[in-house]
């Protein structure tokens, strides 16, 4: 896991295309823990709140991870990709390693001033560039096609979320009418 972190951040050219699945789970657990602690701090939650937040964040992250990987794998294959679903899954998890920097950035925010939001934005750009690169390597696609895969996957997820929200609303409105 430490190797995966080091190579992803500092030597991306030698990072494994797709790390083992247990490493991918470890990445999401660690990122979820950091995110949960930051949110618990922002919301002034106690130990119980932190644990609840950890479960919630971990579940949401994993759902999002599976969703993005599934959509990316499907679109990549449509566009001629040759990677397997599992390698897409683990490659995407590894691409999110830069998000580990968000916690130290948040801690340094009082000293960074206006630089903090810029750096935070930069970390997200880095992470999503990593996702594009991960799709490209896992499916042997060009970077251009990989960008299309990511955008298409994002659109598919967005539409899916909207559908999930709209369907019950429509059902409710129909019942009320």
């Amino acid at each position: 896991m430490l190797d995966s972190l080091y190579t992803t951040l500092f030597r991306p050219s030698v990072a494994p295309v797709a790390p083992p699945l247990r490493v991918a789970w470890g990445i999401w657990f660690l990122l979820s823990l950091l995110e949960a602690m930051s949110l618990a701090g922002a919301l002034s939650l106690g130990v119980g709140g932190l644990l609840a937040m950890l479960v919630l964040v971990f579940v949401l992250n994993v759902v999002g991870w599976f969703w993005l990987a599934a959509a990316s794998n499907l679109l990549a294959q449509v566009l001629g990709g040759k990677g397997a679903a599992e390698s897409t899954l683990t490659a995407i998890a590894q691409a999110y390693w830069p998000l580990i920097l968000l916690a130290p950035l948040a801690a340094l925010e009082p000293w960074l001033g206006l630089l903090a939001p810029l750096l935070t934005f930069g970390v997200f750009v880095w992470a999503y560039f990593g996702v594009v690169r991960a799709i490209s390597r896992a499916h042997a696609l060009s970077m251009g096609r990989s960008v299309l895969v990511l955008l298409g996957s994002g659109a598919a997820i967005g539409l899916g979320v909207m559908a999930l929200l709209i369907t019950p609303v429509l059902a409710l409105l129909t019942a009320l009418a």
Partner: protein
Amino acid sequence: MRTDRILAGLLVAASLVAASAAWLSSPPRESSLNLAGALSGDGTADVALIDVYGTISDSADGGVFGGGEGASSNRLIAAIRDAETDGVKAILLRINSPGGTAAASQAVYQELMRVRKDGKIKIVAAMGDVTASGGYYIAAAADHVVALPATTTGSIGVIMHLQNIEGLMDKLGIDTRTVQSGPHKDILSPFRPTSPDERAILQAQVTETYNQFLSDIVAGRKMPLDKLKPLADGRIYTGSQAQKVGLVDSLGNWRVALAKAADLAGIKGQPDVENYSGDDFWKGFVPRVEAKLPGFFRSVQSSEVPVKVPLALME
């Protein structure tokens, strides 16, 4: 272990420490919900909350890691100035102090009286477990004093402890010699009895300080000296007793005091409260960690407000 793994491990550790600090150092949820409105941190609060916890002394203002335990008069004065600069309408003093040194208590009193005389800010004191001696000195500067019925207050007076360990030193076979520039330079020496002359000098100092204390209470409480003097023989009072004799205005907890502060300052609705006591890193950090992890810093916290401290102004 390989360097790259060490680097990656350090990064993970730094991230965990940063996230943990973000969680542990956030204000307790209770405060933000119950402090009547938002707990502002942007200098736009209506009421400044200033805690006077522990023994009052002229200790260092501290740096990032604070200036030790107890209530530093320098920190309190800085907090009052900050609140004034931010344009708050009221100051709520939460006092849980057995007293402290005369000069430090007087310094805080004078700062509060200056603000009070200016007339723009109303001051309310809320007494906790103990607000005695120097603690009462500070409370006397408030426009309104609220105590709990069981608060220990009073102890208006000045005390100076002297020891003579000459006999003990003799038993131990230690011979102490002093070289001094004048006859009274070793006036507080514990190695010999105090002479009548020295006793008179010390008594004059105690009496002078006591008179300053009394006149400040008279000014702060608007209580005639002849009414105050019989109450100020050093005895302690419960909050209820203190209210009956006029040393306290009303009974209630600090939230009642907050409502009174809002009322006196003419604040409509729920006042925004900002805690101005938090400039000391550990003072703020330890209670916040305690709120998240009860018992974690129990020993540290319990030592901040000692239960048994002599009710003394001068030590």
